[in-house]
Structures are given as C-alpha cells and as structure tokens.
C-alpha cells in the first residue's frame, strides 16, 4: 500500500509527560516525512477531558487512532519506532523501508 489517501489521526495523551511529549514529536515527524500534505492530526489531552477517552475506547496513553481511511486502527506507545507506527496505519510497504527506530 502507498500513501495516497487522506489520513485523519488523533493522538491521545494524558498531560504533559515525557512520553506524551515524545509521542507528539514522533508522530509529527513520521507523518511529515511519509504523509506530508495527506494527514490531519489532532492531539487530545484526556487529563483535561477524561470523557473523551470513552469515545474511542482508549485504555492507555499515548494512543494514536487512525480514523480515516477505514478500517480504524490504533497504535499504543510513544511512536518511537516508525516501522511499527507505519504498520499500525496499514502502510506496510512504507514500513518495510522505514528505519526501525527514531529518536527517543
């Protein structure tokens, strides 16, 4: 699969934690590299709004939800491994070329 569709992503974090902070940076970095111009990212802090966690059945943070294109996918962790992150988004062919880890 190649990235041609429009991706709608939502990153759930719980406050300003080092892991949440890293997740934000990593998601943006990977998306800017592989999905430039093809994605929308919304960062949701559930420590401020816990009820928002219910909508997407969030069980841990940081969690990234791919809302579109279907099917819905979720990735948990600080997204420091770009290959795992891309696999989670169903971008298998890109994931195979991507480095296994990025900055922590």
């Amino acid at each position, binding site marked *: 699969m190649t990235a041609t569709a429009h991706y709608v992503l939502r*990153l759930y974090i*719980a*406050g*300003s*934690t*080092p*892991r*949440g*902070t890293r997740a*934000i*940076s990593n*998601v*943006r*970095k990977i998306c800017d590299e592989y999905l430039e111009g093809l994605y929308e*990212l*919304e*960062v*949701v*802090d*559930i*420590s*401020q709004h*816990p*009820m928002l*966690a*219910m909508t997407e059945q*969030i*069980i*841990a*943070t*940081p969690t990234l939800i791919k809302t579109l294109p279907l*099917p819905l*996918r*979720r*990735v*948990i*962790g*600080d997204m420091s491994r770009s290959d795992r992150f891309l696999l*989670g988004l169903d971008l298998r062919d890109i994931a195979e070329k991507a480095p296994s880890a990025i900055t922590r």
Partner: protein
Amino acid sequence: MMTLARKPSSRATLLWENGELRARIMELEAALAAIRSGDVDALVVESAAGPQIFALQGLDAESCRFRGDMLAQVSDAVMAVDSETRVTYLNAAAERLYGVTASGVLGRMSSAIYERRWVNAEDEAAAMAALSEFGEWHGENVHVRRDGLVLNVESSITVLADSDGQPSGVLAVIRDVTERKRHEVLLLVSEIRYRRLFETAHDGVLILDPQSRKIIDANPFMTRMLGYLHSQLVGKELFEIGLFKDKAASQEMVNNLKRTNEVRYENLPLESQDGRHQEVEVIANLYDENGCPVIQCNVRDITERKRNEEHVKLLIGEVNHRAKNLLAVVQAIVHQTAKYGDSATFAARLADRIDGLAAGQDLLVRNHWLGVEVADLVEAQLAHFKDLLGRRVLIVGPSVRLTMAAAQGIGMALHELATNAGKYGALSNLEGRVHIAWQVSVAAKPVFSMSWLENGGPKVVVPTRKGFGQIVIGRIAEQAVDGCAEITFRESGFSWKLSAPAESALVSTEVGI
C-alpha cells in the same frame, strides 16, 4: 432476550471479518505488550463515575501532571519545543495569544505558530550565546502570528534537559507586551513633542517643588533671560534669582498658590545676572504630576510690551492734541472766510481752503507726522497745476523737511498763492510763470527762506482791501514758522517771501544743512 437470525456471509465477507478480528487481536496484544514494557504513561479505567486516568510513572508522573496543571493556569503563554523546535507543550494562554489550538499545533514546528523577529540584529546571537552558556535567556523580540498580527513579546527561555542531562528542547514563558510597547511609543512621542515646546518656548518656564520652593527645572529661555546656567538655577528659590524681593515674598506666593491653584503677577522687576533690567509677568500654576504636586511658573518678559503701551499712550495724547489744533485751524478758516469773503461764494471758498489743508494733512500722515519735504508740499498744493510743473511753474530747492506746524502754515499759504495765481496772477493767462524757491543759509544760526515770484501775468492791481488769503500768506504763515513774510504787488508780478530760523521751520535733523 431476542436472538436475531444471522444472514449467511459470503466468503469474501468472512475473510474480511477474519482479518479485522486478527488486526484487533494484534492491537490488543500490542497494547498489553506496551503496558507490560512500560511504553505507556497512563491507563484509562472505566468506572461508574466515568473514565479514570491512572498515571504509571509514580511521583515523577504526578509532579509532571502537577506542573502541567500549574502551567495551564498561568496567564503568561507557556510553550515547550523539542530540540527540533517541534511544539511539545502549549498552555491555554499560548493558544489565546497565538490564535491556535494545542491539538492542532502540537508536534508542529514552532514556525507553524509564529515567525520570530529580532528587534536588533545582534540580539539573536546574544540569545543563542546566553542559552548555550547559562541555559536561559530573557529578552524582548517580535512574534508575527500566522494571521499576520504582530506581537511584541517579552520572553524567558530555559533549556530543558532529558534524564541524561542532555538538552532536549526549551521552555518559553512569553508575555505579550504589545500594548505596553504601544504606550511606551506614545509616551516617547509625547515626551519629544512637549519637551520641544518646553525647550523652544519664548517664555521662561520654571518648575518648582512646592514643599522646598526650590527650582527643579528651567527651560533654556529662562536661563537666557536671567543669564544663569541651568545648573545654577536648579536648587534656588525664586527670591534668590531676583524674582521676588525676599524669602517671605517667595513663600507668600507659594502659599497663595496652594490656596488658589493659580497666581498672577504683573510688572515684576527682574534683573539678569549682568544687571539688565526687565519687566516680567509671572503666571504660576499648581499642577499634579502623577500624584506629586509641582509649581509651573511662566515668566514673560513684558519690557517691550510695556514700552509699546507707553508709546501708544503717548500717540493717543499727541493725536488728541493735533486734532484740537486742526479743529482750531479749521475754525479760523471758517471765521476768516466768512468775514472777508462774499457770502455767495462762501461755501466754495471754504471747501477749497479745507481741501488745501487736507492735502497738507495727508502728507503729514504719510510721513508719520515726522515732517514734510518742501518739494512734496509744493507739489501737493499745486496738484491742479500739475501739467504746468517744470514749464511755467519752476520749483528749486534742497531736500529739507518742514515741521508739522510749518508744513500746515506754509501749505495753507501755498494753496492761497496758487489759487490767486490761477484766478488773477501769472497762471491766469497763457504766458505767465511762477518761480518757487527755498533754501537754508549756512550760518551759525541757519535761516530757512522761501519765495514765490510771479511774472508774465496780467498787470498786477494792488487790492483795495485785505482778504483772508492775505492773512494766510502773511500772519498765519509767519506764526507757523516764527518768521517774517514779505508780500509785494509789483506791476510786473506778485511776489511772496518767507524767512524764519531754520530751527523753527525745519525738523531738528535738517537744521545742520
């Protein structure tokens, strides 16, 4: 409970559903693995009260959360960026300041929020050096929002370190000082504008402390007016610079001012350091300067104004005196014209004589009552023979100025002479001539003399009675110059001569001629 019969699925649908289930199981396994391996920092647990969030990083996480809550509440904008300047934290104040939402810009480069500009070119290098050396920088710069709004900001930047002590980004506390800067600029403009008024005013201005009554500022005009340096004025009381006669008078002025808020003194004598005397007017006001009372004294040099007022007073007196004189002359003309003339021609003769008087008067006014050139007077009185001047009317004489009284008397005489010459004398035919001459003799006591000689006219007949015209060219002319008139009725032509001390007939500067 009702169970719905499930519609048999196609093979493709079953395969897709199977794939989805696998993917879901993998996600759950990944989630469990992430939780086990410590890749998550919080768990969300459903409860009767709603979802509850449990932090997994002990005290550090708690303190992180506490710090986050604190930063979220502060009124200054707080923003954190990582080492690549990606935004990792943005509080509510920062969202408001830059017109963005944290959810939309977190993870983006800071340039997606604003463009940074430095006030001075060297500020950037200084900031980088401070961050590198001390790990922090405080200063002002300009942030331009993505919608173009320019913000003047005061920033406190601190370098953030990771658990290994390596720089991992910076935390910025940003305060919007745009409004303050705008007021500073307005204040500066105001200061320049009103300072210029103070510095260039053509009145002396003194600022005094009402408590000590001492001068705390003075404008340059005041220093010039008094001949003191600014530093010599500051710290002195008004009586010490000669504005009031003693300490008590100076104190009384301040006391009056405290009671009425404004006092005014006219005609105060003021002496400059070099002894120059000036009349001044002082207007003092008590003002409030940001809670502190100050006295402002405007000191105006009215020496020139006073001189002008005196001059105007003198002129009014003089005009009054001259008007009375003129009315007396007119009265005499009326009386004499009526006494010696024919009643049928009275009005015409009177109008003619008053015209002559008016011509002389015009000359006096034109010369600001400072005397009249004899040549101008002659030409004015012979205006109706203008075309004969230089041909049949010859005028010879130096440039000398008659006094006001002399100009009036001689002017009337010339008018009578010209009228008679036109009616009966040398200008009543086509050949006659008139020679008008005047001179000033060079002697210890110079004498002004003037003559009117006619020839070529009809044969002169000696009048049988003395009319007013003869009185004008005789007695009135003599009185005007304190001199002596000589009237001769020769058969060949009439002549008139007038001589008088030059000091009586001429304005003083002419007497030396």
